[in-house]
């Protein structure tokens, strides 16, 4: 599936959404949910290639594998939180969207904690 098909899918879903939004708002949310998940799932297999390329590059550069794992984890959490927040916003729940974003930020902080700790230890060892 290439970008043209994704674009056509997005435009067609937008037309359906315009038709449904005034009549059946709850169904419009479902359509946007399905379209959003579908488009991202189409793109996902391509992104896997990019990630393996990044892993290969970091291996050749001698970067520790754990750090790349943390970066990928943060990226995944950010994508999921962003998707969920966009859906909440679509359903008209601005408050819930902000909360989901906040939760995503906290999860990212937790995931990145080992790296921050590593930097802290490095600074301490430099000072002493």
């Amino acid at each position, binding site marked *: 599936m290439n970008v043209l098909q994704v674009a056509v899918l997005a435009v067609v879903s937008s037309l*359906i959404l315009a038709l449904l939004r005034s009549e*059946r708002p709850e169904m419009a949310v*479902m359509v946007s949910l*399905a*379209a959003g*998940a579908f488009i991202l799932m189409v793109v996902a297999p391509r992104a896997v290639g990019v990630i393996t390329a990044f892993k290969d590059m970091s291996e050749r550069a001698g970067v520790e594998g754990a750090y790349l794992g943390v970066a990928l984890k943060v990226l995944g959490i950010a994508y999921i939180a962003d998707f969920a927040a966009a859906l909440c916003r679509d359903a008209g729940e601005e408050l819930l969207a902000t909360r989901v974003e906040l939760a995503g930020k906290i999860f990212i902080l937790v995931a990145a904690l080992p790296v921050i700790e590593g930097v802290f230890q490095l600074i301490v060892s430099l000072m002493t």
Partner: protein
Amino acid sequence: MDVDLIFKIAGIAIIVSVLHSVVKQAGKEEYAWLITLTGVVVVLSMVSKLIWDFFSTIKVMFQLP
């Protein structure tokens, strides 16, 4: 993975809409509400599988626990 799902949801929404207005015209308000609820549940069961697939794809992709 099929695009048909979006058209299916749109079709169900239109059918539910028509049924809703017909039943409402007949003066059965509570049945109209029931029809809407059934439509939403049917569509939700269709969409939830897609969403689950999507989240597991993301999980595998970014190696989340």
